[in-house]
């Protein structure tokens, strides 16, 4: 045995996944486990001001995916940094040890940190805070699928809450490709058996894509279809984000 302790649910989960995979790959039409249609997102719950120690913060809950993002700054850059006449954006994503079904290490997720940075850097007007750094720290409390898009959307909301200048809010949505079908906003179980995935982050008001990643095998028309689906969902999500910001602004007035 490799580890001295183990989670007793491993076996059951494996069976469940295999069953699901078999089911999904055979059928072309099925119901999603949470009753949504293929092009329906999970209900989104967004709030700003989740942690008052930060300059700005936001909490996002999409189904069981729960994320808190705090934004600190603009504040002094690290001493080792060289002079820069534009500001720096520093992103860090951490998962709690209990975020996933198997207990994790609770360490930084470098890959997501880099992706978050790429998705946001095009939207933040770095010229407005020269020589300083804005820190965007995300903590995934629970991972329930589509984690990265939720982190990105939540982070841009937190940036807005902190009053950092941006060209537009960044909203992000992912789709999974399973068999012939394209599923929007996939859950964990769906992500495990996906054949391909596409994550898109965009600034809807400017119709610009700030980040796009794609895995699996895709044809050109299919990419087109998935991107349109995502852009559409991003636009709607941005609307929800905007009303959340307005709400908190009204409250503080």
């Amino acid at each position, binding site marked *: 045995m490799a580890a001295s*302790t183990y*989670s*007793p649910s491993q*076996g059951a989960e494996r069976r469940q996944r295999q069953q699901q995979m078999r089911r999904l790959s055979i059928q072309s039409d099925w119901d999603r486990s949470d009753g949504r249609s293929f092009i329906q997102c999970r209900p989104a719950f967004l709030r700003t001001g989740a942690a008052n*120690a930060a300059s700005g913060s936001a909490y996002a809950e999409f189904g069981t995916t729960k994320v808190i993002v705090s934004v600190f700054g603009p504040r002094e850059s690290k001493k080792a940094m060289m002079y820069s006449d534009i500001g720096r954006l520093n992103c860090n994503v951490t998962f709690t040890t*209990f975020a996933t079904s198997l207990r994790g290490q609770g360490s930084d997720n470098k890959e997501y940190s880099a992706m978050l940075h790429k998705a946001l850097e095009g939207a933040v007007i770095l010229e407005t805070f020269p020589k300083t750094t804005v820190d965007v720290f995300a*903590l995934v409390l629970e991972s329930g699928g589509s984690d990265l898009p939720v982190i990105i959307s939540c982070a841009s909301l937190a940036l807005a809450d902190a009053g950092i200048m941006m060209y537009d809010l960044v909203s992000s949505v992912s789709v999974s490709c399973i068999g012939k079908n394209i599923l929007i906003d996939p859950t964990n179980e769906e992500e495990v058996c996906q054949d391909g995935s596409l994550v898109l982050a965009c600034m809807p008001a400017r119709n610009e894509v700030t980040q796009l990643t794609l895995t699996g095998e895709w044809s050109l028309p299919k990419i087109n279809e998935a991107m349109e689906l995502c852009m559409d969902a991003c636009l709607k999500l941005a609307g929800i984000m905007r009303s959340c910001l307005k709400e908190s602004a009204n409250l503080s007035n």
Partner: protein
Amino acid sequence: METTTIGGGEGATGMAAHMEVEAFRRLFPLPFYDRHLSKSVRPDARTLDSARETTISLGPVASADGSALVKIGETTMLAAIKLEVMTPSTESSDEGSIAVEFYMPPICSPMVRPGRPAEVAPVISQQLSDVIMSSRMVNLKELCLISGKASWIAYLDVYCLNADGSLFDAALLSAVAAFTHLQIPLVSVNEEGRVFTVSGEQQEKTKLELVNKEKRKLSIGNTPFPVTCVIHKEHIVVDPTAEEEAIMETSITIVLDTLGNLVSIYKPGGVGLASTATIKECISRTKRRMQDLKIILEEAVSVMEVD
């Protein structure tokens, strides 16, 4: 200009007449608090011996076996317990174990940066595990599955989501609440000796032999409840905020259990000294606060049961 925080009393009070409150608070924090305390009120309108509003909600993390979210004022703690199976050591073959870890992720405070864990995090971590073990809140024998073969190890991970003083109080309270909420999964053993979970329907279908049919909940006896006080001159300030902790450096944490035993008196140095009378006073505050916390915890549990 003389701005020493220790002796700046007179100069500061003299200047206070022509100064905005916020500026005075920033420049002369100690006289600012002194003047408040002398009138038995705190900047957030609390009296010296009242704690901030405390809420407990159980089960916020679905992927954990037990979890709780505790807020004391703005201080927010999320505790979750995940159960894993281990082979018990030969000395305590019929006992499980508890592994406690306390995290301060960078989101909780501007002082914490990624890659450099906060200085106090390991200290609180150690304090938590000491108190949980000292109080014998959890009977480790209840975590045993098959004597000598398999027992539960409860990984208790407490995350500070927002740090605004009295971190240990919130952390211990969330840990206690998470243990109260803990639901032990039904398990069975396969021929290789590995333990695996059994869902309800599976059990009906296959008639697997269950290992722990009765032991689904831990019997939590002797729940420990903490109160942190700041000692400043002759005042005892209950449940300090981060600002109060930073300005008035001496703090003392008292943990009592429901039987009235003293689980811990923790006073790591500090300028102020704790005399017998002070400690007695703190203990009586703790007793009062314990009654409130008990009710809050019971209410949280009853809300869960209604759902």
